[in-house]
């Protein structure tokens, strides 16, 4: 059993540098691919040419959380987290089967390049475009600022001999190894502690890298880096699974070993805890089938990738590819975390469990540091790809949906390009400034904004695709009702109510009305409001409906 934790050395940093260089190379290659066609269509939508691999492995919910937040929950609460993530088994079918074909067709027929574009053209309503633009820009800016902190934190921990410490799930200050903490306190650089210095260095390097390569390659750079990190993540999980089983003596020893370090409750619901918290009550178990399925479906960054797919054959292949990929990521991670709990029962910050396992299982192997590096760059890549895709969505929203629509409809390609670059640099600067005092509750902000996006856009997207009677006021009302419900439950949970001792522990929490996840209420509010307002307002023009719903 591990009695001390390993620290990264130069091999890990080398792996990170290789990953960054590879991402920049992909961006340069992407730039060549985007030189065909108009700037907007190629830079923000990759000329609608996404293939099956790119679509399958990048269009649904996969981020740094897959490699950090989720393993932390398995490590903390046990096998019940398998039920928490189980809806991922149907995400390939729902993610592509519910909307992909129709959205891809509608966006082509209407010429839509962005999600607000789609709403605007479908309903012939600038208001629908503006409301969706504003919601997207607000939610995604918050999510993105939080992700910059995650990127900087990972850069900090891969620094040779740095403490392995990233943000706790509840947003509290990260714990560090005592030895490393003592070192950080004794060393200062320009008035900053060693730890702070590494964080700010990581923040600046991360920002330059991610803004730089996104500027160069646009949408395709974001997608290809996402694909690259997805493959790395798969490779990392397979390696770590093999190493964990080798170290613990086979798959049959993993869960019993973890149970021996905790209690039999580690194998059952509602999950193991030391403070009486019920991680997954039956009500929450029911809710999570909405969280992952609609959470993926309602993300603007996911919707835009569906719009960008090449053809229907691509969509079909993506279903199977993603199904295989998900089963080879999420189930093995449970076994790895069981091994971690058995081998390292007292990891101080649960979010560190994968980095620590990577370092621990490779500590005695020749070239183990590089191997650990390979495993550790996967979450970094995931965060980088997430930030890159958000940058694209925010830039397209500001440049196409605001600047081109409202300020300068006759803008030339060169002007659009210049504004896009300027917006990206500006967003990078805002992210750095916002993280000078690092945001707290990182994971919780990401979850809240993700749920709010899903509550705002999942129902309107379904109405847009399939319901002839849907109207612009109805869809706007559905968006606002979903966002409003999310915000109301957040205010109730964080400011007005005591901790219900349900779900993950965090101070930035929503209220679980009737024990259900907020997204369930958000979707319900969005659906009811949307349908009622649609039926109470004037039907859309028959000509537009025929154009978008009938055979050409």
């Amino acid at each position, binding site marked *: 059993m591990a009695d001390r934790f390993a620290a990264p050395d130069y091999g890990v940093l080398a792996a990170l540098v290789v990953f960054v260089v590879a991402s920049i190379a992909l961006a340069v290659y992407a730039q060549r691919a985007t030189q065909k066609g108009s700037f907007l269509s190629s830079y923000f939508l990759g000329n609608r040419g996404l293939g099956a691999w790119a679509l399958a492995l990048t269009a649904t919910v996969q981020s740094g959380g897959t490699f950090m937040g989720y393993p932390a929950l398995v490590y903390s609460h046990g096998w019940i987290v398998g039920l928490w993530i189980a809806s991922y088994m149907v995400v390939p079918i729902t993610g592509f*089967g519910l909307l992909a074909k129709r959205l891809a*067709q509608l966006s*082509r027929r209407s010429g839509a390049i962005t999600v607000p574009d789609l709403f605007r053209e479908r309903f012939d309503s600038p208001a629908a475009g503006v409301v969706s633009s504003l919601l997207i820009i607000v939610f995604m800016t918050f999510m993105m600022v939080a992700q910059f902190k995650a990127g900087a934190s990972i850069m900090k921990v891969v620094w040779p001999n740095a403490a392995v410490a990233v943000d706790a799930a509840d947003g509290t200050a990260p714990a560090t190894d005592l030895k490393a903490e003592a070192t950080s306190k004794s060393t200062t650089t320009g008035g900053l502690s060693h730890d702070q210095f590494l964080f700010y260095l990581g923040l600046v390097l991360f920002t330059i890298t991610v803004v730089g390569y996104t500027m160069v390659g646009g949408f395709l750079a974001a997608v290809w880096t996402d694909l690259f990190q997805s493959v790395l993540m798969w490779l990392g999980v397979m390696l770590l699974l093999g190493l964990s089983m080798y170290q613990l003596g086979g798959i049959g020893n993993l869960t019993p070993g973890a149970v021996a370090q905790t209690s*039999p409750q580690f194998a059952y619901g509602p999950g193991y805890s030391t403070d009486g918290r019920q991680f997954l009550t039956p009500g929450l178990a029911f809710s999570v089938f909405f969280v992952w399925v609609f959470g993926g479906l309602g993300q603007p960054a996911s919707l835009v990738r569906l719009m960008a797919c090449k053809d229907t054959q691509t*969509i079909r292949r993506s279903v199977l590819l993603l199904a295989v990929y998900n*089963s080879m990521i999420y189930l093995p991670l449970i076994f790895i975390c069981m091994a971690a709990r058995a081998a390292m029962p007292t990891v101080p910050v649960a979010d560190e469990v994968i980095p620590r396992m990577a370092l621990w299982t490779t500590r005695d192997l020749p070239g183990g540091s590089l191997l650990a590096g390979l495993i550790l760059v996967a979450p970094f890549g995931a965060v980088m790809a997430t930030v890159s895709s958000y940058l694209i969505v925010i830039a397209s929203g500001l440049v196409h949906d605001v600047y081109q629509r409202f300020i300068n409809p006759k803008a030339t390609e060169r002007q659009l390009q210049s504004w896009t670059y300027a917006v990206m640099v500006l967003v990078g600067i805002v992210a750095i400034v916002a993280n000078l005092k690092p945001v707290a509750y990182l994971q919780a902000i990401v979850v809240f904004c993700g749920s709010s996006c899903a509550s705002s856009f999942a129902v309107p997207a379904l109405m847009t695709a399939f319901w002839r009677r849907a109207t612009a006021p109805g869809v706007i009302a559905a968006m606002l009702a979903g966002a409003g419900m999310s915000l109301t439950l957040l205010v109730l949970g964080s400011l007005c109510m005591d901790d219900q001792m349900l779900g993950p522990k965090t101070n930035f929490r929503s209220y679980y009305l009737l024990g259900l996840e907020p997204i369930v209420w958000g979707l319900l509010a969005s659906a009811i409001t949307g349908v009622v307002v649609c039926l109470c307002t004037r039907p859309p023009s028959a000509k537009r409906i025929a154009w978008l719903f009938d055979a*050409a």
Partner: protein
Amino acid sequence: MVAPTTEDPVLRSARREAVVAALVWAIALTYTVGGSILYGYRDGAEPVRYVYGVPDWAVWFIVLPWGASLVVSWWFAYCWMTDEPLGEEHDQEVPSDGR
């Protein structure tokens, strides 16, 4: 009701696929969540029952349906979904929304 002859064939097939996708989701939810609630929620007082080192309820209600979902995904993608042309991109000048 729209006459089948006028409705866009891509819309028709997309709706048919969406209905089945929603059904698959509902069945997975019912089986996985229902079974797990019935058999996977215990007070931890009794010893854990394992199948190949995995808690028995997790084998039946998480691992097994996850395996089955691979087969269903294959069927959905290669037997149920159909290929259709998505159409040409409509090229239009961006209208001004400034008032």
